[in-house]
C-alpha cells in the first residue's frame, strides 16, 4: 500500500502526517481555524477561500507505507514551513536513508513519489497547493460530496468504537466492516483517515524496523546535510548492524524482500503470524484506542459502582457467601477466594515489588520493558515467565492439579470483573478447549453470551464482556481486557512461543490482571512463586477429594527392543491383564509416533479379543478414536504426548513406556499421570512409568504428585485422610 505524506504548519512546529486519502485531509484542515487546535467535534465548514493559505505542503503523493509511517508524526522546527523544495527533499532523503540505501537509486527516487506530475512553469511539486490539486481530486471523487462529508464524523465514531482494544491489519478491518458495518466498507480509507486525524486511532506499517537510532528528524540540521550522503557514511551504515524488521503485530523478526505491492526492494513479510493474514511492511496496521478506564477502574477496590465493598476489605464469611453460588469444593473455594481477593485488591504497596505503581501504564509498557531487558541479556525474546518476572504484581498463578475443576474456579473471577463492567478474556492454546468451554460458560453466564474466537470461528468480530479465544487470536487485540486468563499456560503451542506470550501481554488493558492456570507451571514461574514475588493459589486435590494416584517406577527393557523381538515384557503384561480384569481403560504413552502403531499391532496379537487402537498427531481420525476410547469401544489406546492433556476417560490406568525418553519432561509425565483416576467412581487409577532407567523427570514428577497429595490432606474425604497418614511404600 502507498500513502501520501504532507506537512502542516502548526503552532509548535511543522508536523508530518500520512494520508490514505488526501481528499479527507483537505476537508479536515479546511474545517479548522488557522492556528487553533479545536476539538474534532467541530462541524465541517466549507471555506474554499482559505484553502491554499493553510500552510499545508504535500511532500509526496504516494510512497511505500512503511516510509510514510516513518516520517509521519515527526515534528520539525517551524522554519521548515518556508523551506525550499530542495530542503524538504534533503530532509526526506536523510530520514529515509537506510531505506533508500537498499533501493536502486533510480527506483528509490521514483518510489518517493516526490514528482508525480510534470512540473509546471518551474513550480516544484512542493508548492502544489490544495487548490491546484482540487480539480484532479474532485474529478476522481466517486462519492457524492455532501453525503460523504456529513457521514464521515459519524462513521469515524463507529469505526473508533469498533476498533476499541483492537489491533487489525487493513484486510482484517475490511472483513470486520463487511460483517458489522457494511455501508462503511467501500469508504474505509476516508473513514480511517478521519479517525487518524482526530488522533483516535493509530496507523503504522504492519512490519516496522527495530533498533533504529532515535531522533533522526530532531537532530537534523536543515542546511547541513549534502544532497547525497558521502560514501563514508553510507559504508558505515551498510557495514554496521542494519536494523531488523519486526512485526508490529506479533513482535517476531521478519526478513525483507522485493515487493510488487509497494515496489520497495526491502519490504518484509512476517512468516510467524501468517496464519492470521499477511503482515508486511507496506501493509497497514490499525490500532484502536485502548480500553478506556471506566467506572473508576484503575483503583477498582476504591470506586467500583454498585457492587458493594471490595473483596479485599470483606470479611471471609461475606466472601464465602458470594462464592457459595458456584458450589465449589472446599479446596476450590479456598483458591477462588485468594484469587478474587487478588483481583479486587488495590494494586501498589500491598503487593511486593515496585511494579504495582507502574501497573496502570499498561501491558504494552511491560512488554516493551521485558523486551529490552531480554535484548540486553543476549537477544532472546521473553516468554510469559519473562513477562511475569518483570511485572509480577499484576499476575496470579492458579496451580491446580489435573482434575481439580479449574473451569469452575474461573467463574467467581469472571463474575468479579464483570460486576463492574470489566472485559474478560479466557485464552487457551487449543481450539478444542475453546469449543468445550463455550457451552459451560454460556450456562454459567446466560446473560453474557460469551464470544468464542478461533480459526474458522463463525463469530470472528463479535464482542462480548466475556471472550473465549485461542491464544493466536489475541494478536488482533491491544489493550482490550481487564482480566486475561491464560489456561494451560504450559501447553503447546503457547509454551515456548514468544510471539504468543507477546500477544497475551499486548491484549491486556492498562491496569488489567493476568491469571495463569496450570497443573504443571514452568520452573521459572514456580521459582517466582517460591520467592514470594508471584501471588499463587494451589489446589492440591481433585474435585472428588481423593488423592492423586502416585506413579510406580518400573524397570523394563526398552520399547524399541521389545518391538524388534516381537515380545512384551512380563511385568507389564501382568499389570495390563490386571487393569483389563478390573474393567479399566488403558492408556499407553510412547515417546514416538512411529512406535505407536507397531506396539498396537503387537498388543493385538497378545490380546486378540481386546479392541486396541493407536493414534498420534498425524492421525486424521484422532477425535473419533478418542471418542470410542472414552465410550470403552476401544479398551487399549496407544498414543503419544498429543493426548497428555485435555482427555478425560472415567475409569483409566496410565502406562508410560519409555518414560526415560528426553521427549517426556516432568510436566508431561505429571499430565499423563493425571489421566488416571479422574472420576469419583474410580478415583484410584494406576500409573506406571516403565523405563530402562530412572530419570530426573520421573523422580520429579513423582515428587510433585506426592507433594500435592501432602498439601491435600486437609481437603481429602475423611476416609482418605486416615489412609494418607500411613506412609506409602
Amino acid at each position, binding site marked *: 500500500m502507498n500513502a501520501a505524506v504532507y506537512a502542516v504548519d502548526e503552532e509548535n512546529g511543522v508536523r508530518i502526517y500520512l494520508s490514505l486519502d488526501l481528499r479527507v485531509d483537505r476537508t479536515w484542515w479546511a474545517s479548522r481555524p488557522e492556528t487553533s487546535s479545536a476539538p474534532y467535534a467541530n462541524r465541517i465548514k466549507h471555506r474554499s477561500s482559505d484553502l491554499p493559505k493553510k500552510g499545508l505542503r504535500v511532500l509526496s503523493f504516494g510512497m511505500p507505507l512503511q516510509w510514510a509511517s516513518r516520517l509521519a508524526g515527526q515534528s520539525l522546527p517551524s522554519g521548515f514551513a518556508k523551506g525550499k523544495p530542495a530542503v524538504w527533499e534533503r530532509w526526506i532523503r536523510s530520514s529515509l536513508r537506510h531505506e533508500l540505501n537498499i533501493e536502486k537509486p533510480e527506483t528509490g527516487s521514483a518510489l518517493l513519489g516526490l514528482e508525480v506530475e510534470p512540473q509546471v512553469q518551474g513550480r516544484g511539486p512542493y508548492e502544489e497547493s490544495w487548490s491546484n490539486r482540487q480539480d484532479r481530486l474532485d474529478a476522481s471523487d466517486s462519492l457524492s460530496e455532501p453525503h460523504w462529508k456529513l457521514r464521515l464524523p459519524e462513521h469515524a465514531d463507529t469505526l473508533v468504537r469498533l476498533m476499541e482494544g483492537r489491533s487489525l491489519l487493513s484486510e482484517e478491518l475490511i472483513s470486520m466492516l463487511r460483517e458489522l458495518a457494511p455501508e462503511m466498507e467501500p469508504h474505509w480509507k476516508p473513514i480511517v483517515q478521519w479517525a487518524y486525524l482526530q488522533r483516535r486511532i493509530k496507523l503504522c506499517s504492519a512490519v516496522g524496523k527495530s533498533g533504529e537510532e532515535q531522533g533522526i528528524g530532531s537532530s537534523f540540521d536543515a542546511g547541513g546535510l549534502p544532497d547525497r550522503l558521502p560514501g563514508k557514511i553510507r559504508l558505515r551504515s551498510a557495514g554496521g548492524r542494519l536494523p531488523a524488521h519486526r512485526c508490529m503485530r506479533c513482535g517476531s523478526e521478519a526478513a525483507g524482500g522485493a*515487493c*510488487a*505491492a*509497494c515496489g520497495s526492494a526491502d519490504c518484509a*513479510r512476517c512468516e510467524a503470524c*501468517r496464519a492470521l493474514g*499477511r503482515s508486511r511492511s507496506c501493509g497497514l496496521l490499525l490500532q484502536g484506542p485502548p480500553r478506556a478506564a471506566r467506572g473508576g477502574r484503575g483503583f477498582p477496590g476504591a470506586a467500583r459502582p454498585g457492587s458493594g465493598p471490595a473483596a479485599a476489605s470483606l470479611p471471609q464469611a461475606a466472601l464465602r457467601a458470594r462464592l457459595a453460588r458456584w458450589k465449589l469444593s472446599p479446596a476450590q473455594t479456598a483458591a477462588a477466594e485468594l484469587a478474587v481477593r487478588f483481583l479486587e485488591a488495590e494494586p501498589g504497596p500491598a503487593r511486593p515489588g515496585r511494579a504495582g505503581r507502574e501497573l496502570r501504564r499498561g501491558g504494552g509498557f511491560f512488554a516493551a520493558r521485558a523486551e529490552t531487558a531480554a535484548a540486553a541479556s543476549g537477544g532472546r525474546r521473553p516468554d510469559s515467565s519473562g513477562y511475569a518476572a518483570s511485572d509480577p504484581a499484576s499476575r496470579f498463578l492458579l496451580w491446580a492439579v489435573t482434575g481439580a475443576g479449574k473451569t469452575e474456579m474461573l467463574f467467581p473471577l469472571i463474575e468479579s470483573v464483570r460486576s463492574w463492567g470489566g472485559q474478560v478474556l479466557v485464552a487457551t492454546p487449543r481450539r478444542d478447549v475453546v469449543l468445550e468451554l463455550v457451552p459451560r460458560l454460556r450456562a454459567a453466564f446466560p446473560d453474557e453470551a460469551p464470544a468464542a474466537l478461533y480459526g474458522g470461528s463463525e463469530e470472528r468480530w463479535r464482542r462480548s464482556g466475556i471472550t473465549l479465544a485461542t491464544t493466536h487470536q489475541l494478536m488482533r487485540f491491544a489493550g482490550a481486557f481487564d482480566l486475561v486468563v491464560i489456561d494451560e499456560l504450559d501447553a503447546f503451542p503457547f509454551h515456548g512461543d514468544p510471539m504468543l506470550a507477546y500477544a497475551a501481554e499486548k491484549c491486556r488493558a492498562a491496569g488489567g490482571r493476568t491469571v495463569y492456570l496450570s497443573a504443571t507451571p514452568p520452573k521459572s514461574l514456580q521459582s517466582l512463586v517460591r520467592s514470594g514475588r508471584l501471588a499463587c493459589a494451589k489446589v492440591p486435590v481433585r474435585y472428588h477429594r481423593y488423592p492423586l494416584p502416585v506413579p510406580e517406577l518400573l524397570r523394563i527393557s526398552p520399547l524399541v527392543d521389545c518391538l524388534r523381538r516381537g515380545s512384551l515384557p512380563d511385568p507389564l503384561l501382568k499389570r495390563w491383564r490386571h487393569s483389563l480384569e478390573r474393567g479399566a481403560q488403558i492408556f499407553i504413552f510412547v515417546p514416538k509416533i512411529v512406535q505407536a502403531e507397531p506396539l498396537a499391532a503387537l498388543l493385538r496379537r497378545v490380546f486378540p479379543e481386546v479392541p486396541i487402537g493407536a493414534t498420534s498427531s498425524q492421525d486424521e481420525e484422532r477425535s473419533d478414536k478418542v471418542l470410542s476410547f472414552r465410550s470403552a469401544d476401544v479398551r487399549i489406546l496407544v498414543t503419544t504426548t498429543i493426548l497428555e492433556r485435555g482427555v478425560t476417560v472415567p475409569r483409566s490406568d496410565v502406562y508410560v513406556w519409555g518414560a526415560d525418553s528426553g521427549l517426556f519432561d516432568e510436566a508431561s509425565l505429571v499430565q499423563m499421570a493425571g489421566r488416571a483416576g479422574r472420576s469419583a467412581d474410580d478415583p484410584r487409577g494406576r500409573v506406571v512409568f516403565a523405563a530402562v532407567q530412572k530419570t530426573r523427570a520421573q523422580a520429579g514428577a513423582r515428587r510433585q504428585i506426592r507433594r500435592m497429595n501432602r498439601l491435600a490432606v486437609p481437603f481429602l474425604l475423611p476416609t482418605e485422610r486416615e489412609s494418607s497418614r500411613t506412609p506409602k511404600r
Partner: protein
Amino acid sequence: MSEATGIFGALRRLLSPRLESCLVCGRSARLGASLPLLCESCAARVPRIARPRCPICGRAHGCPDCLRPEAALRAFVMNRSAVVYDAVMRAWIAEYKYGARERFAEPFSILLEQTYRRMQLELSKPFAESGPFAFPRSVFDSSRRSSAWSADWITWVPVSAERLEERGFNQAELLGRRLAGRLRLPAGELLARSVHTGKQSFKTRAQRLQNLDGAFCLAPNLDPRFFKQWDSIGSGKDPRGSFPIRILLIDDIYTTGTTAAVCASVLKTLEIGFGRPVLVYSLTLARS
C-alpha cells in the same frame, strides 16, 4: 580462554551437522538433500511427473482434453508440468501464493529446472514419424541440425494489479526469474493482464474460456532491445533466418490449459512485429 572457546566453537560449528527447520513440517533436520529448504520426508512427498502420458499437455494419466477437436487449435506447442496437483501440492502452493511464503520459490524452481531438463532431452531426440505428435517438419529438421532444443526466452503469466497489490508478488514471475537465473536464459515480462478476472479456480471450463477472452495483452512498453536480442539469437542459430523463437511460458498450475492457450495466442502476435515464427512452450509447476 575466550580464544579457546572461540576455536572450539568454530570447530563445533564446523563438525556438527547444520540443522535448520524444514519449510513444510518445521522439524529440524538436515535440509536440501533432494530439494532445498525441505527435509527428506517432506521432499519424498512431492508427486513428481517422471513420465508424462499425454505428449501434449504433460499429464501423468490419460488426457481426454487434448483429444477434443478444439485442442488442436491451441496456440502453444506443448505443456510440461513438474508435479501432480494433489493434496500435498495444493497445500504447498496455497502456502506459497496466499500464505506469503515466498521461500517455496526455491524448491519449486528446482522442480521446474528438472522438468525443463527432461523436456530438453525429450525434445532433442528425433521423433518417430508415426508419433502421435503432429509437428511441423521443418522445426524438427532444424532442431536436429542445431544440437539440442532449448528455450530462447522465459516469460510468465501475469497477474492483475489488484492481485499483485494483495499478494505482493507474482508467483509465476518469481518462479520464472529464478528458473531463468539457473538456466542462464534471458527472461522478461512480455504479457500484461488487461482486465481483472476472478480466480480461475472457482470457474467451470466454459466460464474459464469466456472469462479469459481478451484478459491478456502484450506488455505495454516492450523494450525494443528484446527484439534485438532475439534477432541475434535467431541468426546465431540459423544464419538463413528462418529459425523460430521459442518462448517458455511459466505458470503455477495447469488445469484446462486455457490460460496457457490464451497467453500463447497473444504471444503469437509478436510474430508480426518481429518477423519470425514464435513457438510457445508452457512449463508449469503442477498439473491437475
